């Protein structure tokens, strides 16, 4: 896999982290397994301001994991590490979470699982027309504004 900003090691770590952030759900695989790390790598290439918080967070995760690599920790321990990193630098961590959500929820297959068949245009949505009879109580309230 060719990355633009992340090293292969960072990409692998990000992928594992993303599997904890957005885990599997029913038939849906977790975010990392779906390839969200590669999408985040593309975001980092396009938007340099995102690099510092994401890379800082990945480094902090490695450090917090201690001697054993993050990959070798069990699920409970991974989440514990992530919570600690989040508490230490919530701002950077939340950027990594945000970019993971960005990568995950822009996928048509994930959108389909939420009942979204198309982007908003060109079809839009058909909604019921406004029914003026609903206003009868309010109309009867009389004048509610002040004269000058």
């Amino acid at each position, binding site marked *: 896999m060719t990355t633009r900003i992340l090293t292969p090691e960072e990409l692998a770590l990000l992928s594992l982290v993303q599997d*904890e*952030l*957005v*885990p599997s*759900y029913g038939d849906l695989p977790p975010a990392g397994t779906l390839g969200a790390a590669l999408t985040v790598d593309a975001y980092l290439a396009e*938007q340099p301001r995102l690099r510092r918080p994401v890379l800082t967070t990945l480094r902090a995760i490695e450090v917090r994991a201690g001697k054993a690599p993050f990959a070798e920790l069990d699920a409970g321990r991974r*989440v514990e590490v*992530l919570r600690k990193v989040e508490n230490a630098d919530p701002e950077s961590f*939340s950027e990594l*979470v*945000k970019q*993971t*959500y*960005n990568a*995950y*929820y*822009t*996928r*048509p297959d*994930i*959108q389909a699982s*939420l*009942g*979204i068949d198309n*982007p*908003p*245009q*060109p*079809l*839009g*949505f*058909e*909604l*019921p*027309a*406004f*029914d*003026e009879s*609903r*206003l009868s*109580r*309010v*109309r009867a*309230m*009389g*004048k*509610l*504004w*002040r*004269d*000058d």
Partner: protein
Amino acid sequence: MAAPELDSDVLIVGSGASGAAAAWSLSRGGLRVTCLEQGRWVDPSEYAHSRPDYELARQTSFAKDPNVRGWAADYPINNSGTPIYPLMVNAVGGSTVHWSGHFPRMRPSDFRVRTLDGVADDWPFTYWDLEPYYDLNDSMVGVSGLAGDPANPPRSPRQTPPLAFDAGCEAYLRGLENLGWHWWPCDNALISEPFGENRSPCNCCGPCDIGCPIGAMSSAHVTYWPKALAQGVQLITHARVEQITVDHAGQATGALYYDDHGVRRSHTAGVVVMAANGVGTPRLLLNSTSARFPNGLANNSGVVGAYLMFHPVAFVSGVFEEVVNGQRGPIGGLMNCQEFYETDLARGFVRGFELQLSRSVGPLSVANGGILGHPVPWGSEHHEALRSRYAHTMTTSVMLEDLPEPENRVTLDPELTDAHGIPAPRVEYRAGENTQRMLEFSIARARELFEAAGAVEILVDPLVQESGWHLMGTCRMGDDPERSVINGWGQAHECSNLFVIDGSTFTTSAAVNPTSTIQAVALRCADWLGRNYRDVAA
């Protein structure tokens, strides 16, 4: 007409809501009008609505904060002194290029707050003076809505009917009817049926805040600009104005600007009209220093840039058990509740607020906190939490009247500049005590509404950081030159051929979105200027 050696009779700076309306109005009478606009035309192909990743546009190419969006036309703003960030769009059509199109009018009492409530200042004219221009503006832009709201004076029939009434409206209605509060389908600057040329009616696609690709939204680039251009207005894009020039007598002579290639040019005119918005206009006037105006043009009073008003906004969201599909239908305009609009001192504050009962956003924006301000948690609870909110949430904006205070202001940053080296604005703002008391009270009312509507969870963002949509008051109107920059016709007290017509003109803020009033004021000023051009032109 001005002397033929002048480049134009009237030079307008800024092509947004007010600049577009004034360009159309002034050119009707045959004046030679030029508009300098730092931005460009947004190409319809740039809108993201047809892509699955459309929600990303809120964070990138169509972000509302220019510091995040970073278009070439955007200038940096130093926000370190304000909890509310100014938001704007720098393009042909200005901040109406991607907005929500909520289009309420101010009420008669809003123009008379000193007389009625003993605070701030009265406007130099009344609602009734402005009413014909509200009507004219509505007929130009196309509004959807319904006349007959008992909370407002009677008004002319709306151009197109109110928008759809769906499950989210039913949810709100449960609460409103339980509480017996006022509500009305609000006026929106968007068309629900065919109106105007090259525009399609709204198809309820949802994310108006990242622009409208079909021209349903009544943005200035699809309403006024085609007509103004047909009347011969010259619109120069990619033209960043650096300063307004003056002669030895202190009369405005035109502007210096940087063109598309970065070349510094001058444009001369008999009258200069500022329409660069509530941050851009004071910035330019403050940057236009001369021997006659050492503190900035028309600023010997020190009032330029002062009295900045936002509408401090809280978002209160109700999560419902049933599907309300808040992501469908125009994001902003649904219903207004003006139960608490007029002053009732028993509430602990003066003036009032409205509850804007709005919709919601798609799954990505819900996950990221979107307009809720509360991101969905990551980890094992993520999917259930997301599914409980997405398509189940409606969001109400609490919009309250912000009183004008001289300490809240736009100044020039001593260090920060834009790409052309022009000093950037610095914004200093804090919500006053009255505002804070009103915020607390209004959030409690919004909670009460959602409780009465049967929401299972209520989320509150008590002061939304990215909510400086409404930039008002920084070159305020008034009769007193010590407390105002311009008179009721937009004419500067200190420089008779300089006019200001944008959001900075507001004497007070009212508790409704400002743009229908901004455009009505611009039309009224332009009308007067058109009739009196010979007398005021340099």
